[in-house]
């Protein structure tokens, strides 16, 4: 098997287990302030190869979400967010295209495109995912404030985890 594909599979397994076995068990409260969940699974979608066909990307996003939903007991919620992130990722990449384009860049990571670029890219992606995720979870636009608070607080912790991962593994 192609070693690049193997890497992606291994990353999937690692992130998935970390998400459902560790992060799901952590319940963070600040008093009655129950807005924080840590979500790292989108990182897998974020780090998928740049030249992946869009349709495949969308399917993988959906599959990732469904897998997480399986353990979060929330069928469809992560799946819809994963599909959404996979759908908009090419647009984000187009928008952030570096001067030389993405030629010879296998995956959009810190290693290839630098810390600043990656932080911006990962932040946009993660925010999109979380915003969609919490919108679907709350499921009514009436509680917009709740959705925004959940998104912001979860984003802060999740992006820290994402960066931690990038510094530890620094995927190529």
């Amino acid at each position, binding site marked *: 098997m192609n070693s690049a594909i193997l890497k992606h599979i291994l990353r999937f397994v690692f992130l998935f287990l970390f998400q459902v076995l560790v992060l799901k068990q952590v319940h963070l409260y600040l008093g009655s302030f129950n807005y924080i969940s840590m979500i790292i699974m989108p990182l897998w979608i974020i780090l998928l190869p740049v030249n992946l*066909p*869009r*349709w495949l*990307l*969308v*399917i993988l*996003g*959906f599959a990732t*979400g469904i897998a997480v*939903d399986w353990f979060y007991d*929330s*069928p*469809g*919620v992560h*799946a*819809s967010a994963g*599909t*959404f992130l*996979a*759908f908009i990722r090419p647009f984000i990449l187009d928008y952030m295209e570096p001067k030389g384009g993405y030629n010879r860049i296998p995956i959009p990571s810190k290693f290839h495109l630098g810390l600043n670029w990656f932080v911006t890219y990962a932040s946009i992606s993660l925010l999109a995912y979380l915003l969609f995720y919490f919108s*679907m979870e709350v*499921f*009514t*636009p*009436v509680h917009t404030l709740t959705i925004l608070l959940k998104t912001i607080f979860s984003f802060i912790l999740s992006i820290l985890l994402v960066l931690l991962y990038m510094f530890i593994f620094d995927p190529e």
Partner: protein
Amino acid sequence: MQNLLAFFYRYAFVFLFLLLEFISIRLIVNRNDIQREIYLNSSSILSGKMYERIGKIKSYFGLQEVNDGLAAENAALRAKLADIQLQTAGRVDSVLDTTTHQRFVLLPAQIVNNSIELTNNMITINKGSLDGVKKYSTVVESNGIIGFVTQVGSRYSSIMSVLNSNARVSVMVKRSGYIGNLVWDGNSPLLMNIEAIPKHGNVQIGDTIVTTGFSHFPKGHPVGLVTRAFVLPGENFYLIQTKLFNDIAKANYVYVVDDLHRTEIDSLSQHTKE
């Protein structure tokens, strides 16, 4: 043709995206109770709010009529109050009265969404669980009945209108006391039929129909007048048509009736069934 295929190929991921989102939302709605509740509840927050805005505008047009109705109701209540005060006027000391208990609690509400043209009409009111509305409570107007609460949201509730093919209300002829079921045939919103009054019931045109209290509507609440009553040859039951006192199409201010004895009554009839 080739262009069309190329178009589909190029935008396949968009269709795929929409399809997968649709599947996700179906999953969310089908398997997550909370979201299902929100989704099903037509009375829920967003549509309820919208309906309420529209209702507010609409209610200006019927203000005169509403006022008249409320004034009439006030007058009737005042007359009753005078009765009560007369009875207790002679009392020197207060007495703990254990012979009468309150059975029904009324909660005022306003209709924010209503339909009469369907076979199964539903109504939305602007009171929900936060205001103490309970599922299966009944809803009445000062001069007639409206329906049953079927879904309770936090701020709004859905009501199965009596103008609904699934609604059955136990009613009786006030004069003779014979009991039957009030059903709607789906035609005029002003006319309803009464089933199961036996042919010896001697129903006459112009008889008043009131509720029995069996369906958790307050006993003796006015329903309508008999406009047609006849027995087909060879049948044992009357065919009765009644004209409702209230026009549900215009209903605006209503009362949610909570039957405090519901649990007891229902558990007894449950035992009987077993």
